[in-house]
């Protein structure tokens, strides 16, 4: 397991990021590449106003999608992992559907579910759902049978096994799958928010700023979306470190 990102490293990374951005702004020297010194004040001013509302709308959609995906994929994955017979039936289907880029179903979902938030959340949830489903299934299937037997002998029925064995056993894998798929989720959110809504960072970046040539404001939006991805990524990463503590300092 990699180590925790410390504050110093984070600051150095940020400084380098803004330095390279500034250098690019000097070299390109066109309105499409404004300086961070121009963008950051706009960002800090608007993040508590208009931009903040778009930010919250996008965050709410991603979190809702993560919630829906976890709540549905974990139990189904555990079920498939525990019952090999059922898994054998569905494994080929999952293997085929899993790599399909779910975004291509965007028009279908819009027609079937309407142009509401629900269709956007559903689309993102589908992406995360398959990532989690596959890892949870495999974790549950790989648990040592003797471990299950000995916990059952302590009196655990299905509910206690889920609570004390299957769920904690698959939690690290769930978090890894989430961390890996959260980038894709936000990318898809960006596309889904470009139309048929009035709130969301995708809408803000494309419709409210890009299409009317407000480039510095557009960069404030890009910064907000990057921040959303970054914060989610490191929040999940920190949770991963916490649940993986026991793996450190192995005896043999």
């Amino acid at each position, binding site marked *: 397991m990699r180590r925790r990102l410390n504050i110093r490293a984070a600051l150095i990374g940020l400084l380098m990021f803004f330095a390279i951005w500034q250098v690019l702004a000097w070299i390109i020297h066109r309105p499409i590449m404004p300086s961070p010194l121009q963008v950051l004040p706009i960002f800090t001013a608007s993040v508590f106003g208009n931009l903040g509302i778009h930010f919250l709308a996008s965050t709410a959609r991603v979190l809702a999608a993560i919630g829906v995906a976890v709540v549905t994929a974990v139990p189904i994955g555990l079920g498939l992992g525990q019952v090999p017979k059922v898994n054998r039936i569905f494994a080929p289907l999952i293997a085929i559907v899993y790599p399909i880029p779910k975004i291509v179903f965007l028009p279908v979902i819009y027609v079937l579910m309407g142009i509401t938030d629900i269709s956007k959340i559903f689309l993102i949830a589908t992406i995360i759902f398959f990532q989690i489903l596959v890892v949870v299934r495999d974790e549950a299937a790989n648990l040592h049978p003797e471990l299950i037997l000995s916990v059952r002998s302590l009196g655990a029925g299905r509910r206690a096994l889920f609570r004390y064995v299957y769920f904690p056993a698959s939690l690290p894998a769930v978090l890894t799958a989430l961390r890996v798929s959260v980038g894709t989720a936000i990318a898809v959110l960006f596309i889904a928010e470009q139309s048929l809504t009035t709130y969301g960072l995708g809408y803000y970046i494309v419709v409210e700023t890009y299409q009317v040539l407000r480039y510095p404001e557009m960069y404030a939006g890009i910064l907000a979306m990057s921040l959303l991805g970054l914060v989610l990524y490191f929040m999940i990463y920190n949770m991963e470190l916490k649940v993986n503590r026991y*793996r450190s300092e192995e*005896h043999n």
Partner: protein
Amino acid sequence: MITIDDLTFAYSGQSPIFQDFSLHVDRGAALSIIGPSGCGKTTLLYLLAGLRHPQSGSIMIDHKPITRPRPRSGLVLQDHGLLPWQTVRENARLGLTIWGFYGSDGRHAPADEQLVPNQADQRVDGWLKKLGIEGLRDQYPLQLSRGQRQRTAIARTLAMKPDLLLMDEPFSALDAPTREDLQNFIITLHDKSDLTYIIVTHDIEVAVVMGQKILVLQKSANQEAQIMDNACAGFSDGRMQGKFQQKCEDLRNLLGSMT
């Protein structure tokens, strides 16, 4: 304590391991089960633990048929069965945690006793101490030696106050001093209480040290319970040396004659 009547058991698609097999075990007994691999000794233990179900016949413990794991039966496996993400103390407390999860419902947990969380912690710490691992309570299983892991698993089982202890090759992956130490621990515990225990082993000396009676199973369908009485069980100290060796030899011959 245990009455098995006309037990028949086979794994699907295979010939039966037990056919109309009957066995009686008294309360307070110390029974070893030995036999070649594939003879069904682990299966018998799992049947007693309620983790496998007979095709026909009945298994009664304390006059009640076994259809699921019985709250007052403890099971110790060779592989420890510890949760790697829990500390030694959390692992040792797991049985009591599950007890608290269901409450004293008589199905998952004993009904004859209410569990007070505070007392549960003390009970667990007491067993950790008796097993000499109280200093490791905040360690994770991956950081422990095999012997320490097995001590944790034993503490976890004993914290449930079992009256029947079922053990499947509990000491076979341990080094000799640790094995002797834990054997003596179980024997002392048995002497001081009315604990009944059954130990499955492939090791002749372990079978003789641990079993006041030794059940010998064979590879083909077991019908008659072949039981050898054994006066040499207990501490393998010097005085018994000759008799002990003789008993091991007898058992070895018996096993040899059966295959």
